[in-house]
């Protein structure tokens, strides 16, 4: 059997497992009413336990960059970048902690299944809902495309099979299991994917330390290449303090603005699940981040002269792992990619079916339509969107690749303040939300393109501040939210 074939075995086994999960989830979702079906397909009947909740937050958050991009930067900047990456450890804790049970309670009260539902219930504004849905469609399509491309390229680099084979293999898998199984399939596969990611990072880290002749040897080798690789500020101070601080904002606050992560906080079973997830999530994400980035940094001791950091992980895998283990490792980043794509796919589908179609064509009453039609439509729309992205990835259009550069920052600019202030500030209203979204997106794109000198601060920092100011000003200009909304969100107290 050829090496390439052996490499592909663990990948195929793992993809088959994902299908099995989808079919199981399909059976489990036996609800007969239209509303019941949607509740099941888009939020899994709000039945997630702690472990699954933690894993799905981690999996939808970690993407190709956690396995290839991030360690690639660590390869260039050494231990300083590992240190910096470790600020992602409290991510799950912050996400769940800040949104809190309040978010889950209100989501249940207002019967929200998506962030858009939540925003509609809070702001009672079609303009806000449509703007958010459009932003979500555009940014998600671009981000999914980028994930597909990244995954297929990685697959190509490691197995030697052509780009298109990798794309077909995991592109079709992710589209199918998401379309068939819905939310339940997405979160269960996320949990499996999380476990695979943990195994993958351990395998590669051990292989690297082993090949380098132990930790001490590796570090000495790094010091000989450039003493800056083992300092906290990197070679020639490449990792300045303002940059570290702005990454804190990006990670700490920003993740709340990512709808695919935030939506998870509506779907857990009870407060116990949330508490458990906060701990399990912290433990596992810290482990993955530490091992993956440390691998990148120490990898420099093994292969010191790669032309680009992004090549670090694929090259190390091929250099150090036997074909079978290379396959096991490659399943890790593929898992990370698929788990990001599946959540996005489902949310895009939800935006079309629930937020736009059911709300505007059926006036918000899903029971006007037979359950079977809703089921078929949900499945079809998920599949069609997935296939559009899939075909786009064969010959990536420049426009979408360009939009992707703004996708994550853009999503944060759109969703962060409307969610956060909607939840905690009584005066927040639709005018403020609109202003925040418009100013946020425009300023983020402007700053990203113009690149004014800001002393190493990431564009997301001024964007977040501008969006906040716009929100506050807009809210005071507009009318205060009506009493019904206040009563719904804050109980009877005025």
């Amino acid at each position: 059997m050829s090496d390439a074939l052996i490499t592909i075995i663990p990948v195929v086994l793992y993809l088959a497992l994902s299908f099995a999960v989808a079919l199981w989830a399909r059976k489990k979702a036996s609800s007969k009413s239209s509303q019941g079906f949607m509740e099941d397909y888009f939020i899994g009947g709000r039945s997630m336990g702690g472990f699954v909740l933690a894993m799905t937050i981690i999996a939808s958050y970690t993407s190709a960059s956690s396995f290839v991009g991030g360690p690639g930067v660590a390869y260039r900047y050494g231990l300083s970048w590992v240190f910096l990456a470790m600020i992602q450890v409290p991510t799950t804790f912050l996400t769940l902690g800040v949104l809190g049970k309040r978010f889950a309670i209100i989501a249940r009260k207002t019967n929200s299944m998506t962030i858009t539902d939540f925003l509609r219930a809070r702001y009672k504004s079609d303009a806000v809902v449509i703007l958010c849905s459009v932003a979500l469609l555009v940014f998600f399509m671009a981000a999914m495309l980028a994930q597909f491309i990244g995954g297929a390229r990685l697959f190509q680099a490691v197995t030697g099979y052509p780009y298109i084979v990798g794309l077909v293999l995991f592109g079709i898998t992710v589209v199918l299991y998401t379309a068939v199984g819905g939310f339940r399939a997405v979160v269960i596969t996320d949990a499996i994917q999380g476990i695979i990611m943990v195994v993958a990072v351990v395998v590669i880290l051990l292989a690297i330390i082993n090949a380098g002749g132990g930790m001490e040897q590796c570090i000495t080798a790094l010091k000989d290449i450039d003493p800056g690789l083992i300092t906290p500020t990197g070679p020639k101070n490449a990792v300045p303090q303002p940059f570290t601080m702005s990454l804190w904002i990006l990670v700490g606050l920003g993740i709340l603005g990512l709808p695919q992560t935030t939506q998870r906080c509506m779907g857990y079973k009870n407060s116990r699940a949330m508490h458990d997830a906060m701990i399990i999530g912290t433990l596992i994400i810290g482990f993955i981040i530490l091992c993956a980035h440390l691998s990148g940094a120490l990898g420099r001791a093994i292969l010191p002269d790669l032309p680009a950091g992004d090549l670090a992980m694929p090259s190390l895998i091929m250099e150090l792992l036997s074909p079978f283990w290379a396959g096991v490792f490659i399943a890790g980043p593929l898992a990370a990619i698929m788990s990001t794509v599946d959540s996005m796919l489902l949310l895009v589908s939800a935006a079309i079916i629930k937020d736009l179609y059911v709300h505007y064509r059926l006036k918000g009453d899903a029971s006007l339509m037979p359950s079977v039609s809703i089921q078929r439509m949900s499945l079809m729309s998920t599949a069609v969107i997935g296939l559009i992205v899939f075909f786009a990835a064969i010959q990536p259009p420049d426009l979408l690749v360009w939009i992707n550069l703004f996708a994550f920052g853009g999503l944060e600019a759109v969703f962060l303040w409307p969610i956060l202030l909607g939840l905690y500030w009584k005066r927040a209203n639709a005018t403020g939300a609109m202003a925040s979204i418009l100013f946020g997106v425009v300023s983020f794109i402007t700053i990203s393109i113009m690149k004014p000198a800001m002393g190493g601060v990431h564009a997301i920092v001024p964007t977040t501040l501008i969006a906040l100011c716009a929100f506050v000003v807009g809210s005071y200009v507009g009318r205060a939210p009506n009493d019904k909304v206040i009563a719904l969100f804050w109980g009877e107290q005025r």
Partner: protein
Amino acid sequence: MGDGDPEQYAYVFGMPEWFFYSCIVGYPVITILLWGIVRFFFKEMPLDDEVSDDELGTAESEQHIADSNKGNIA
């Protein structure tokens, strides 16, 4: 720690001291810290709030919301 000359670094298990204490030790310490916070400062409560529109359920639902805010201090 770690600001000095890399030549003068002390090492723990082959890793520079600053890195060992911040990342390798820091990660479990933070996890344990967060565990403590969840264990002692977070309350368990029902999330379903079916009775909130009811006159009778009002006081109770206010209680839930007040509690949920407490949980969010962290």
